[in-house]
């Protein structure tokens, strides 16, 4: 069986997800022998437009991004969204919250008409996405797991339970006991609760579990005299694009 051909791309983002792939360190050489990376501009000069699988980092924030993404969509049989920006729009969505025209005015002033920028969206607003490696940055183990699954032809297992489960498994003291706001009760696990483990509240960079029990979160808040405003501010760091989920492309 021939090795799957893979292209690794970055739209508008920080490059951290592609760096996490290079950060696989001991596993990197194994990965490179199991797949054929034919397009990876950040690390490789030669490139080919003949790939089966595309790993895409970054959100869509410019017309140029849309063109590049649609081109990738025509070639790749499987698209994996890597990182919060590609999966849900990520932090780049704060531009939408602020207002795209307002943002252009603030940052570019009278040069604003030179600027190519559109409302930030996750990549599944433009192409069908088969798998999501969520998080900011994503968990290396999950990227490897998805790629391995694609090689052997099985469906990767992505957790659909809250971060609280991982915290409990690690024996962490609940951050609410320290008066720290944490979105663990509704955020999707798969990151080994790395932020609560570092005594920093979860900000749901991996998005929410399906059908999150919002009410349970409110009960915890009420118990600790915290306001909904605090949560809404945290909620919008990584999920400001969530409203547009109904325009997600299925094909």
């Amino acid at each position: 069986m021939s090795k799957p051909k893979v292209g690794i791309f970055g739209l508008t983002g920080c490059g951290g997800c592609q760096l996490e792939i290079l950060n696989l360190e001991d596993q990197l050489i194994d990965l490179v022998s199991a797949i054929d990376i034919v397009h990876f501009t950040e690390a490789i000069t030669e490139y080919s437009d003949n790939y089966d699988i595309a790993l895409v980092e970054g959100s869509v924030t410019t017309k140029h991004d849309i063109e590049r993404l649609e081109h990738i969509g025509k070639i790749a049989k499987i698209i994996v969204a890597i990182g919060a920006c590609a999966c849900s729009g990520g932090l780049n969505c704060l531009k939408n919250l602020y207002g795209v025209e307002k943002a252009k005015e603030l940052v570019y002033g009278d040069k604003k008409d030179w600027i190519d920028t559109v409302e930030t969206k996750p990549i599944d607003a433009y192409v069908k996405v088969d798998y999501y490696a969520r998080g900011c940055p994503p968990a290396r183990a999950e990227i490897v797991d998805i790629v391995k699954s694609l090689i052997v032809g099985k469906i990767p297992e992505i957790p659909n339970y809250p971060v609280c489960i991982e915290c409990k498994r690690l024996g962490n003291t609940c951050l609410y006991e320290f008066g720290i706001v944490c979105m663990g009760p509704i955020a999707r696990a798969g990151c080994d609760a790395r932020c609560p483990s570092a005594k920093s509240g979860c900000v749901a960079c991996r998005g929410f579990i399906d059908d999150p029990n919002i009410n349970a979160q409110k009960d915890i808040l009420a118990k600790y005299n915290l306001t909904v405003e605090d949560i809404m501010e945290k909620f919008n760091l990584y999920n400001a694009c969530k409203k547009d989920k109904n325009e997600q492309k299925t094909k």
Partner: protein
Amino acid sequence: MAENLNIEVSPISRVEGHGDLVIDMKNKKVEKLMLRIPESPRFFEAMLVGRNWTEPSHITSRICGICSVAHTYASIKATEAALGVKINDQILKLRKLIFHHECVQSNTLHVYFLAAPDFLGAGSVFPLVQTNPEIVNIALRLKKMANDMVRIIGGRAIHPITTVVGGFTKLPAEQEMYQMRDMLKSAYPDLEASLKFFKTLKLPEFKRETEYISITDNKEYALYDGKIKSSDGWIIDGKDYLTKIKENVVEHSTGKHCRASRDSYMVGALSRFNNNYDKLSDNAKTFAEELGLKAPCYNTFMINFAQFVEIVHSIDDSIKLIDDLMQSGLDENKAMVNVKPKAGRGVGVVEAPRGLLIHDYTYNDEGKVTKANLIIPTNMNYANVEKDMADYLPLVINKSEDEITLAMEMLIRAYDPCISCSTHFLNVKLNK
């Protein structure tokens, strides 16, 4: 020799972000010679407005995956300056320790993975797995060591978690401090082997003297704290950066070009080396000498060796920092200092791996951001890159078009540009 050249590389590989090389020559006359930046504008200045003082470091960390610690700390220092926060010695030492290792990680990535392939005739590090496995394994080990250092102190290698305004949310365990010391000590054989390898590489002969700007400190090789120094003979406090640094819009680039005392200046490892050579560890100085790197150096390609010398220095200095900290051990009660929001403006200046980085924030009395400016090192290099290109082209003009293209790409790569960081504009009125 070619009379006409029509070169366009879009995008250049093995740099972070999207930059295009454009060379247009007709009848021996150069009509276009530029590093065009079509990278998406990021809008961080807008995204910070209205956010609470606890958030900017988390948000601006996401400007860049490679230099997330640098942005995190430029941000934290700006907020602490604005809010009048004074940290203690333990926090300062831990910050310097984690700061060293983002630099090691980034410099390792650049020298071994992004730049070295060119000197070995390869298009990436991957073929080197077959032809030069020893150096690839060294590179992976050094990168892993640096990433582990950042993860142990910061909670995660990219976009650190424990690093906040006022200190650390969690300290490393005592055992982890000694573990880090062991990791650092075990890197020396790899550094020696790398030195042997780098000595076999032939860097292009190129010289163009320019203005070199970096931070500087009386006691140490400045990366985390310092005043801004120019090789043209001035030193200013970080908060006065606008008195010397001017930005202007250039049509072919979403990243602005910068000027200080001359038409262009350089920031990054070579500027730091030129300005602060005497503060390097003795060991690092020896490595520099072995590589033929002397201060001041005007060869842009030597940035690669300066980065390697900095790796050596950072490892030496980290061991000292750990030994200092473990004299009294880590004190949980000193992990964080108290922070009260108040109105104010603060400027945070650090050396990101690629050069001088400045965050400038203004807060209202609720502790919310009203205004933010971000000055990015790669921006500061664009004008200098193009001046270098103009001087270098005549030296390579007798080669084939492919060789000329590669030579110019290597020149751009030497700067280790971080292009998606750099697409910002300042919303400041320039002095006319």
